[in-house]
């Protein structure tokens, strides 16, 4: 058991595993969704699922920001990158996400000036250093990342950096969760709530899961013992017939979130009527665009892009993986045609993606072990 060998708090982990077994109702199959890709990563890194009884199943949610970008948006990004004079900037992970005709990495090889940046502020610095070029930043991410883009845009506006623009693909966490809860092919019993998104939005916006759907939520930290403790808290709620939002990650996540971050997001962004998610389709009010006061910085208004909806490749089952309907290794191309080196779908690209996490930790197929 890797967990016991490698984790510094192995003893606590072992104790939690015993308590989990005591709290779980042996006659009930329980499905808990971990929303955040960071959790998925820890679970497979430490083999936490091996510590759970066989009737407690962890399924992976849509919380990897790279994984949810649909193909059409990658195509639009590539079109912008090919515009004359453009320096196109993006996070490293996005370079490898397939569009309908290759990746940004391929476009770079074909001569487009595409640069990997660590921060939107790096993109802004490039714009200031190269005033004769147009610098576009490919903004992706949930509320964890959106405030950073917002602050960067505020600064660009204050300093009048006219050659800077943003291709906004920020998404919000609540609408996809609601869509999953409304989806008939999935029956979930509770949620391991996202850690970093919650530092911004707080735990409060997750209350609808308990109030409207009667499911418990525990916002969780990322360490193995955090996740095990959150699973225990969820099982305890289920055993006691409660459904509440609890905050296991209180040491980092304030229940009301980061008010300053929420303020700047509200100032800079506006909600789109709907936004397409890879594999999940269009979800109402789930994506952000630049607000009217920032229209001058909106790359979608500056450049004519295809703006097409592109169907996912037939072989790709990322949608089912993102909804937790299938496990990554159940996808027909998992580990064969689709690998982290040559991904077909997005879930294989980022280390937070469920397919990449399975692949990297050798989970090609497995039966649930009885522990």
């Amino acid at each position: 058991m890797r967990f016991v060998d490698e984790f510094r708090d192995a003893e606590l982990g072992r104790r939690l595993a015993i308590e989990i077994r005591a709290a779980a109702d042996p006659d009930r199959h329980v499905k808990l969704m971990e929303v955040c890709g960071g959790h998925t990563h820890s679970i497979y890194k430490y083999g936490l699922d091996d510590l759970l009884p066989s009737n407690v199943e962890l399924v992976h949610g849509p919380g990897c920001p790279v994984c949810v970008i649909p193909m059409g948006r990658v195509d639009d990004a590539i079109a912008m990158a090919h515009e004359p004079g453009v320096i196109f900037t993006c996070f490293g992970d996005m370079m490898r996400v397939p569009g309908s005709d290759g990746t940004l990495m391929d476009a770079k090889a074909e001569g487009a000036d595409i640069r990997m940046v660590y921060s939107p502020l790096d993109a802004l610095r490039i714009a200031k250093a190269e005033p004769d070029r147009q610098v576009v930043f490919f903004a992706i991410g949930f509320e964890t990342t959106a405030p950073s883009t917002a602050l960067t845009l505020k600064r660009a506006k204050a300093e009048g950096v006219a050659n800077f623009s943003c291709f906004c693909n920020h998404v919000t966490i609540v609408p996809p969760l609601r869509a999953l809860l409304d989806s008939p092919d999935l029956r979930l019993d509770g949620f391991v709530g996202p850690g970093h998104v919650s530092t911004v939005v707080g735990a409060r916006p997750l209350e609808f899961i308990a109030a409207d759907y009667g499911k418990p939520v525990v916002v969780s930290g990322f360490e193995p013992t955090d996740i095990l403790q959150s699973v225990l808290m969820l099982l305890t709620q289920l055993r006691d017939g409660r459904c509440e939002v609890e905050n296991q990650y209180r040491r980092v996540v304030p229940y009301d979130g980061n008010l300053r971050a929420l303020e700047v997001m509200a100032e800079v962004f506006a909600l789109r009527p709907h936004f397409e998610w890879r594999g999940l389709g269009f979800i109402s009010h789930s994506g952000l665009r630049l607000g009217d006061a920032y229209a001058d910085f909106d790359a979608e208004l500056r450049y004519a892009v295809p703006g097409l909806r592109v169907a996912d490749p037939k072989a790709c089952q990322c949608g089912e993986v993102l909804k937790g309907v299938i496990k990554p290794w159940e996808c027909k191309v998992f580990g064969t045609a689709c690998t982290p080196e040559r991904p077909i779908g997005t879930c294989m690209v980022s280390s937070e993606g469920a397919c990449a996490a399975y692949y990297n930790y050798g989970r090609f197929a497995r039966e649930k072990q009885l522990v």
Partner: protein
Amino acid sequence: MCLAIPGQVLEYVDEDNRLARVDVAGVHRTINVALLDADGVSVAVGDWVLIHVGFALSKVDEAEAEATLSLLRSMGADFEQELAELRASVIE
């Protein structure tokens, strides 16, 4: 890009733009700390913060920072990649 890495604030380098120098696992870089400005309190030299895409996202205590760092170190290549990207960052 999903990781939030802990770093310790070394000094402010540009108070107006809320930029501070931090030490992240031995790498010294400039980040923005504006998201932690609230009601007249802001980040102080010596504080530990979780950093995401060049912005401090939340304040943490030293023990939490240590624990998060050791978790990240255990991720191996992914953490190395994140540090390499941070090293290439020049925020002014």
